């Protein structure tokens, strides 16, 4: 998903080779994939501003998306800041040290291979946290920040000042741990159980939790929920006695597959049905076409779940489904 095929790179080379008159500065960058795309010549002495401009132009010429932004984020990162806006005006006009310049060239060359910026600088922000990023673990999206906001809002409405001391959440498909860690950071009484089918994701989530000092309230497990129709014994036993509110599951690409597109949702909802306490909730981040499918599934299967509502993201697309486990008297 994140890396283009060799075929595409070759096409790029053809386009590039055809305009060789315009491109008089060529030097094969040592880090470039397949030795395909060349970096601009290292001019020796350069200010931060100039580096941003040179690389932005280079990215643009090579069809890299968000050329200026990529360049800005990388240079800012090398200068120890999150965005270029945070770098002091004076520092931007200072000459980069040899080490800084080398780093900029190194990282920007990686971006030339179409590696996402988040993987290039190996970190990204999620709400008020900074998390380590590592391919191929999923990069948290801005919409997901909204999901966390939604959950926090909901919790505040339901429990107000007095958080239950035994508040528990389950996250299916934690990736880099963005959602779990964000919630743990905001709610001191919360304990989270996080699952992911990728061992790399599990390791990354654990690493991020340790870096943020949240590892005590987080339990991360390597589990492929999709291929398990019943939750494993251990999971059930641990979760049964505790209040649980299930969180979203990672659906990228997964919902797309399957013969009826529901091969992932069914086990997830079954899991929710078994593990949730009364009035416990499920928050799903989905594709805009999914809410009606999910609604229908809930009605058909009689899982004891109620479809509460669909919420839109900031671009006004249906993005979040909220379900609730029925109470005894519902």
């Amino acid at each position, binding site marked *: 998903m*994140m890396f283009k095929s060799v075929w595409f790179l070759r096409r790029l080379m053809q386009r590039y080779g055809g305009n060789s008159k315009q491109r008089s500065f060529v030097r094969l960058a040592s880090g470039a994939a397949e030795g395909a795309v060349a970096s601009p010549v290292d001019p020796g002495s350069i200010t931060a501003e100039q580096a941003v401009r040179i690389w932005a132009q280079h990215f643009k010429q090579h069809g890299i998306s*968000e050329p200026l*932004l*990529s360049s800005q*984020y990388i240079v800012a990162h090398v200068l120890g800041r*999150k*965005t270029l*806006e*945070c770098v002091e005006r004076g520092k931007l006009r200072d000459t980069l040290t040899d080490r800084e310049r080398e780093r900029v060239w190194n990282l920007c060359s990686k971006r030339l291979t179409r590696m*996402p*910026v*988040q993987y290039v600088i190996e970190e*990204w*922000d*999620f*709400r*008020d946290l900074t998390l380590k990023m590592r391919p191929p673990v*999923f*990069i948290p*999206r*801005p*919409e997901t*920040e*909204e999901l966390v*906001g939604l959950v*926090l809002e909901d919790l*505040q409405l339901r429990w107000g000042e007095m958080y239950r001391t035994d508040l528990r959440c389950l996250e299916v498909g934690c990736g880099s741990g963005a959602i779990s860690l964000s919630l743990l950071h*905001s709610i*001191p009484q919360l304990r989270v159980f996080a699952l992911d089918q990728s061992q790399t994701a599990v390791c990354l989530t654990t690493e991020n939790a340790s870096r943020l000092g949240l590892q005590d309230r987080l339990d991360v497990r390597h589990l492929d929920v999709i291929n398990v129709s019943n939750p494993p014994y251990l999971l059930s036993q641990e979760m049964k006695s505790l209040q649980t509110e299930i969180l979203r599951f990672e*659906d*990228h*690409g997964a919902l797309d597959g399957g013969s009826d597109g529901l091969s992932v949702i069914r086990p997830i909802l079954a899991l929710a049905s078994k593990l949730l306490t009364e009035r416990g909730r499920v928050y799903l*981040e989905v*594709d*805009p076409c999914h809410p009606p499918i999910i609604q229908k599934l809930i009605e058909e299967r009689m899982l004891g779940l109620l479809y509460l509502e669909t919420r839109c*993201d*900031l*671009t006004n*697309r249906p*993005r979040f489904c909220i379900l609730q486990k029925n109470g005894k008297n519902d």
Partner: protein
Amino acid sequence: MSWMLLVNHIIATPWKLKWRAPNTGMCNRLSLQWHRRQLGWPCVLFAGKKDLIDLPVLNEEDLDEQFVRGSGPGGQATNKTSNCVVLKHTPTGIVVKCHETRSVDLNRKRAREILRQKLDIAYKGEESELLKQKKETMHRKQDKRRKVNQNIEKKRLFKEMLYSDQGDKKC
């Protein structure tokens, strides 16, 4: 100490206090102001960098928010890193652009904080919180300088007295 308790409370639920500003702004203002008068201690100490307490409250209906995130289906199909937030206050026409962080959520919050400060200056002019704070710090510095000078003066006089005493003794 009551102000210590207040600090702990804020730290424990920062998300609740800060981001609830539009609806509960009034309550926060009143309760924190009461503490301020009680202790004569500037609230800026535990309200963060700027004194958020007396800044104008924002009405979400007056705001026009845009995210420079480009077109596309959004969600997991895209990987856009542009998290810049452009916030326009329609009644006054003031526009704030914020790209201080790599998080859209944080940029939205920061944009609102910056807008509140700008509105404050626009509405109150000389009386705005920012200018008041600057004046306050300037006065405090002047007071400090005056005290330091006074101390130096006192020491000088004391030394003079000492030497003159010694001079007397010698004579």
